[in-house]
């Protein structure tokens, strides 16, 4: 049997993806249902000369990865709802100071300590707006372990490309269940490495002066160049400024660098979508139920398709609009009170024909849950 086939939990697929992408520093504080990410990395990272640190809490963990990233490491932390709340201030700092980092949030029921061992997708909007102030963010997700691996690699690539925090929004079901993972050969997936400055030692280096292509080359902090890093609005040297031109310019840059690249960031999958009259828009573990239903009904001749989103932020508005344009109705399948529903409604031409198929009781939404709602929408009763 080939060595690269594994039978693992989703959390372990995330670990493998992170290591493949070049992770060499992890700081975290264990929390269900994300703990296996820390558990496996505590073993794997030291083996390859990386660093694993269990910090005193989630805030410190987030700050530790920010510091490590500045020194040139590829970094990550993992948590769940309550810990994700704690990390928000530092995530904002990473947005402002443009520090590449990856934050995995394996979602459980909330608010507060909520429902630790059960599934939810209630942090979609927290990923977008959890930290204060105008900003943009990248959040990715996956419904199966092969895609958990791929999206984790994509997260590191996006963090490096756009110098920004990237959120991996997994959930308890995908995190804990076990299934097949084929670990790609080296070189099979593209890896974006840290873009370092070519400015020589002791020559003035401007940490926040974009190149022509908009990217900002970094210099390992504590290395060859002295520069300032702050959460305040700052100029190209990194020094605080309240000059309106600089403030407005920086904020516009932080948002534009992501919103202008929606297409490059967006990842999605289509299942039975061709000619579909009813489209299920879903993501994460609830997409598994949607796909199950669509494939079953297709075999019976019903035209049901699934648009599976793998990137949620920036929201792929144009994609959703285009894919759903021919549908009689769109059902957003998610385990919250309609966080992606709002986005889909805003994207499509006919928002009145967009419905929510949800479940919020800690149980994975089932194909029959979706089927019942679909029948109601189709006017066929339950």
């Amino acid at each position, binding site marked *: *049997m080939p060595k690269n086939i594994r*039978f693992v939990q989703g959390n372990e697929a995330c670990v493998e993806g992170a290591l493949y992408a070049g992770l060499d520093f992890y700081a975290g504080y264990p929390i269900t249902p994300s703990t296996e990410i820390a558990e496996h990395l505590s073993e794997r990272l030291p083996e390859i000369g990386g660093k694993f640190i269990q910090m005193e809490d989630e805030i410190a963990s987030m700050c530790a990865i920010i510091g490590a990233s500045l020194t040139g490491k590829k970094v990550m932390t993992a948590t769940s709802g309550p810990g994700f709340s704690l990390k928000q201030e530092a995530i904002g700092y990473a947005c402002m100071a443009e520090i590449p980092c990856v934050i995995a949030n394996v979602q459980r029921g909330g608010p507060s300590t909520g429902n630790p061992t059960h599934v939810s997708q209630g942090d979609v909007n927290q990923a977008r707006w959890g930290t204060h102030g105008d900003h943009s963010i990248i959040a990715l997700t996956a419904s199966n372990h092969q895609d958990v691996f791929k999206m984790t690699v994509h997260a590191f690539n996006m963090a490096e490309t756009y110098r920004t925090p990237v959120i991996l929004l997994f959930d*308890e079901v995908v995190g804990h*269940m*076990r*299934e*097949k993972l084929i670990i790609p050969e080296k070189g099979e997936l593209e890896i974006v490495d840290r873009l370092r400055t070519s400015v020589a030692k002791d020559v003035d280096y401007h940490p926040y002066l974009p190149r022509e292509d908009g990217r900002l080359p970094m210099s390992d902090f504590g290395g060859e160049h002295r520069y300032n890093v702050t959460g305040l609005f700052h100029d190209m040297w990194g020094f605080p400024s309240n000059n309106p031109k600089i403030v407005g310019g920086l904020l516009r840059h932080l948002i534009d660098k992501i919103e202008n690249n929606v297409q490059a960031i967006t990842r999605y999958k289509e299942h039975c979508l061709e000619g579909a009259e009813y489209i299920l828009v879903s993501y994460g573990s609830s997409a*598994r139920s949607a796909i199950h239903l669509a494939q079953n009904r297709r075999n019976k001749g019903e035209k049901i398709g699934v648009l599976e989103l793998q990137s949620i932020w920036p929201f792929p508005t144009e994609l959703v609009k285009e894919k759903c344009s021919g549908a009689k109705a769109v059902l957003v399948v998610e385990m919250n009170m309609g966080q992606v529903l709002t986005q889909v409604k805003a994207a499509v031409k006919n928002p009145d024909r967009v419905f929510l198929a949800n479940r919020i009781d800690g149980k994975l939404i089932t194909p029959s849950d979706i089927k019942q709602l679909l029948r109601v929408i189709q006017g066929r009763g339950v």
Partner: protein
Amino acid sequence: MNRIRLVFSGSGGQGVITAAIILAEAAVIYEGLNATQAQSYGAAARGGATRSDIIISDKEINFPEVTQPNILVCLTQEAYNTYSGIIRPGGTLLTDKRFVQTTRKVDAKQIELPMYETVVEKIGKPVVFNICVLGALIGITEILQPQSVMASVADRVPKDFLTMNNRAFDLGLVLGAQFRR
């Protein structure tokens, strides 16, 4: 192959989850099939009721939960009382004679085997009970090759305990084989 849906149930500490992982892993790693293994996740490490759902198929598996198992294993009375009703008509229900008194009549092949007793008598270490259950299950159903499951056991069990596990598996295989379907 047809999709096989299994539910393993019992109490924390019996090795129910481990057995489920070993079986599903054997299907994926040693037989090139697809499999998912999911479990009720909670404070059942010792003594509480545990359940693990396994689906094995040569096709893609999406929804990972089992609503009607073809094969149901109940290793405690509580598990039997809770889950015996969900078995798919015509399925196979395996229980251990020491822990479960079968009361309900279900439309399934009910097989009661003295797996625990055999393990205690022949090996003297109840810790390998779960591997004996796996052996019995393979003996009855032949859903996977015995050597695939044993290879998966070898991957997960400390080397010094492998012989004992192999023996437990073989004992189960023999117990199960008499009920081969």
